């Protein structure tokens, strides 16, 4: 509790201020009042004297006019009766009539002070008002005025003093009651208040709505805030303690090693996990400081490096470090160091040994074939790159790459299952490994393909020698569950540097080309890479891209070769044949691009295009009431997915073609390929009324039994038979047989390759109804085709039978 010294109290201060203020005010007010009163009293005195003079004026006038000094003296005496008059002098003309002065007048305060200036009144003649006859000089009694003023002042002073004293007392009392006492009350209340227990101040009575009341409210609000802040602070502290305990638990129990080192690299703090991971014996702990670098690191220099890095860069650094163990494998730790200021570093380590091992094995796996343990394709490519680099040096010789691939290995897998296939491959790998020096590389590229790189062997003879040895080693039967399996292998060989311009991948590619060529030629062959092979493949690739462009740029066109009815001697239809109008090469025959289109799958798009154009043409004919049919060639590759029946139906419908007018020509090969789906395709087409022609009949397997199995509408006898019917008896017999057989099956026949009138005659004789060939016309563009129609009777005139 504060000790309040009385002279600092509000009450005393208020009283002091009031006293000083009131003294000043009182003096000022009294001075002003006195001055005002004084001048007013003087004015009033003068006014009274003036009035006094007025009363004696007429007598004075007479006295002065008559220069009657006795009368003047009487008059002066009369004036002196008034206490305010000190002296009277009356003049008439130049002479003084009388001079009277009060004898009982108190002496002026200062005797030296001259009298108050006299009141002067001119006296005029009683008979002529303008004639001045004398003067009265009346000296006021100033002493009297001052005396009365003084007494008045004294009175006023006393009055003012009493008033001010009362006011001061009242103010002090009010301050005491309204301010000091409530404040004291609040102060006492505050001393006894415990805000945390919910104590609050109550406003002094009658002060609920005053500033004092508001102050109390504010103090209470402040107390509320403080209590809330204290609560919050306490909760935070509790929370922090809990967090600390939790973190401490984590620190203690975590599997990760945590430590702190000082600027000397000495460990100053660590957790149990660190102790365990580092195999620190607790016993050593208090004895002497342990430096982090002194622990059994395999590469202490690497650790020192990252410690320095960490301090220099002032940011976290991490590194994997190996820790040596007595009688154990190394343990790998991932260490993260973070500077925590003042040269100290906090570090975290955790055991990544398993991760490291996994990583190593993954690395090995990446380049290794798990089945055979040989290098895989990636491993081979890496090794080849190394070899290419090595043999790329001047004065280095060269090396060769041999690819080995079993012919028809899928058959083994299909027949015996994958597991047994794998056994064979393992056996093959070991046989191959036996053929080569252990400095040479052997890899399994995938499936049944192996690669062998022979260092320093680059002459064709040497390589062939090795290659033959390989073939020999693979020749003996492989035993699968006791039964022997014979395998043939094809070998493709490329030599560095002569067969490679662009490094390892180029070399591998060329070896693959050679291998593919060996396979194409029937397998069980050794094939060296031939630059011509590469050239042919390059051409193929070029042609393929041109074909794509041709489709894009609509470079194809349909030609129509007429088909003639030999019975009616009329044109009945045409075979639509595709031509490629190449911008540089001119018209390209189908044999030059159809095989490639079939191989690359482009035939699908081309076939659809041909169907579209043929349908358009049929629609035009229909519009012109021309009754002709068109047949379109369908490649084996188009069936069944390249030309889905639905697409065919949709196209015909869109153009409004009758199905009977659009025939599809397929080859015998189609019937051979896949029985189920092809049969389905055929039956769907025929159900919708589209005729199916069997093209090139007689060239392939020509199995008549197919004709029983697959219903077709017409046969087209291949031109190779028709060409020689006039000269070759067996051909003639064959054609005759085909026609007869077809007739018996109820199938119409078209003879292709009809080149002269003799052919027509013979065919007619055999009962062949339809013919097509150069005798009638080559395939024609659509304009020329129209012109052809009229020439048929002329053409056939010479073919009538003799």
């Amino acid at each position: 509790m504060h000790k309040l010294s009385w002279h600092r109290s509000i009450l005393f201060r208020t009283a002091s201020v009031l006293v000083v203020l009131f003294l000043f005010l009182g003096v000022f007010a009294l001075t002003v009042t006195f001055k005002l009163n004084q001048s007013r009293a003087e004015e009033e005195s003068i006014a009274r004297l003036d009035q006094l003079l007025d009363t004696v004026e007429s007598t004075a006038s007479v006295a002065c006019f008559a220069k009657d000094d006795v009368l003047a003296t009487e008059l002066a005496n009369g004036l002196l009766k008034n206490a305010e008059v000190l002296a009277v002098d009356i003049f008439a003309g130049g002479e003084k009539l009388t001079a009277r002065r009060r004898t009982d007048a108190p002496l002026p305060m200062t005797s030296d002070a001259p009298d108050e200036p006299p009141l002067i009144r001119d006296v005029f003649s009683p008979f002529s008002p303008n004639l001045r006859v004398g003067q009265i000089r009346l000296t006021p009694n100033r002493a009297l005025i001052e005396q009365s003023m003084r007494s008045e002042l004294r009175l006023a002073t006393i009055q003012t003093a009493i008033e001010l004293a009362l006011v001061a007392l009242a103010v002090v009392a009010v301050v005491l009651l309204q301010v000091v006492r409530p404040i004291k009350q609040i102060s006492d209340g505050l001393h006894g208040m415990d805000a945390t227990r919910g104590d609050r101040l109550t406003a002094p009575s009658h002060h609920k709505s005053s500033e004092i009341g508001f102050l109390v409210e504010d103090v209470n609000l402040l107390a509320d805030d403080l209590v809330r802040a204290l609560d919050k602070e306490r909760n935070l502290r509790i929370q922090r303690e809990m967090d600390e305990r939790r973190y401490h638990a984590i620190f203690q129990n975590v599997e990760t090693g945590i430590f702190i080192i000082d600027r000397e690299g000495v460990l100053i703090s660590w957790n149990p996990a660190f102790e365990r991971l580092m195999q620190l014996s607790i016993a050593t702990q208090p004895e002497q400081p342990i430096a982090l670098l002194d622990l059994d690191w395999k590469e202490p220099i690497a650790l020192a490096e990252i410690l320095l890095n960490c301090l220099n860069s002032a940011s976290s650094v991490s590194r994997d470090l190996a820790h040596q163990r007595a009688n154990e494998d190394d343990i790998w730790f991932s260490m993260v160091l973070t500077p925590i200021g003042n040269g100290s570093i906090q570090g975290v380590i955790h055991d990544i040994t398993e991760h490291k091992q996994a990583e190593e094995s993954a690395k090995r796996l990446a380049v290794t074939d798990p089945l055979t343990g040989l290098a895989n394709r990636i491993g081979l490519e890496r090794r080849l790159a190394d070899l290419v680099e090595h043999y790329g040096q001047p004065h280095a010789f060269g090396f060769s790459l041999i690819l080995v691939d079993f012919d028809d290995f899928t058959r083994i897998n299909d027949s015996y299952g994958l597991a047994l296939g794998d056994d064979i491959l393992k056996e093959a790998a070991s046989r191959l490994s036996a053929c080569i020096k252990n400095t040479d590389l052997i890899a399994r590229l995938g499936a049944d393909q192996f690669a062998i790189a022979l260092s320093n062997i680059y002459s064709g003879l040497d390589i062939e020698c090795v290659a033959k040895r390989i073939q020999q080693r693979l020749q003996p039967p492989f035993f699968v569950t006791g039964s022997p399996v014979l395998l043939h292998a094809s070998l493709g060989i490329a030599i560095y540097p002569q067969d490679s311009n662009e490094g390892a991948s180029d070399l591998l590619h060329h070896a693959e080309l050679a291998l593919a060529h060996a396979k194409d030629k029937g397998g069980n062959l050794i094939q060296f890479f031939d630059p011509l092979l590469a050239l042919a493949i390059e051409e193929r690739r070029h042609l393929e891209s041109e074909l794509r462009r041709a489709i894009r740029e609509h470079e194809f066109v349909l030609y129509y070769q007429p088909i003639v009815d030999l019975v009616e001697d009329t044109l009945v239809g045409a075979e639509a044949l595709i031509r490629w109008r190449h911008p540089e090469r001119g018209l390209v025959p189908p044999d030059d691009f159809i095989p490639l289109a079939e191989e690359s799958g482009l035939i699908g798009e081309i076939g659809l295009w041909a169907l579209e154009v043929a349908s358009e043409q049929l629609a035009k004919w229909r519009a012109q009431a021309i009754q002709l049919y068109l047949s379109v060639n369908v490649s084996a590759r188009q069936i069944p997915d390249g030309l889905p029946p639905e697409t065919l139906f949709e196209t015909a419908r869109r153009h409004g073609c009758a199905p009977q007018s659009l025939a599809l020509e397929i080859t015998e090969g189609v019937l051979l390929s896949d029985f189920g789906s092809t049969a389905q395709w055929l039956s769907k087409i025929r159900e919708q009324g589209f005729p199916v022609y069997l093209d090139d009949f007689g060239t392939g397997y020509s199995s008549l039994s197919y004709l029983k199995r697959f219903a077709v509408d017409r046969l087209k006898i291949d031109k190779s038979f028709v060409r020689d019917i006039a000269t070759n008896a067996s051909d003639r017999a064959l054609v005759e047989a085909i026609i007869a057989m077809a007739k018996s099956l109820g199938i119409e026949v078209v003879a292709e390759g009809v080149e002269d009138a003799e052919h027509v005659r013979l065919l007619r004789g055999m009962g062949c109804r339809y013919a097509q060939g150069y005798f009638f016309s080559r395939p024609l563009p659509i304009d020329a085709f129209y012109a052809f129609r009229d020439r048929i009777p002329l053409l056939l005139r010479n073919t009538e039978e003799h």
Partner: protein
Amino acid sequence: MLTLASSVIANETSLVVAIHVSAGVETLTRDQVINIFLGRFRQLPNGHLAIPIDQDSDHPIRAEFYRRLVGKNPAEIHAYWARLIFSGKTTPPREAESEEQIIQWLMTEPGAIGYLPADRLREPLKAVFTLDP
């Protein structure tokens, strides 16, 4: 009859201030006349004593004279003299009993000066100041 006639005269006739020609005064100013009759200086311009003579107090001409000279009525003139008589320093003019007596005194007494209606003036009296109606 006479009073009535006098009052008529007094209203219409000029009044003259007359003095014996032997006094040697030719003319007086109004102020000089006032000074002499109202007791201020009883001297003629030539330094001789002047003795003013009033008409009988009841004579209308007296009132007329003061009225014309200083614009005062007889009561006022009386009050004036009452103040001065008290001190004894000066006296009002001598009062004649009649007009005849005025003329008598003017003729006989040296320095005598009086006032008359203008038509009563005779030798050797002389008008030194005239008060027209």
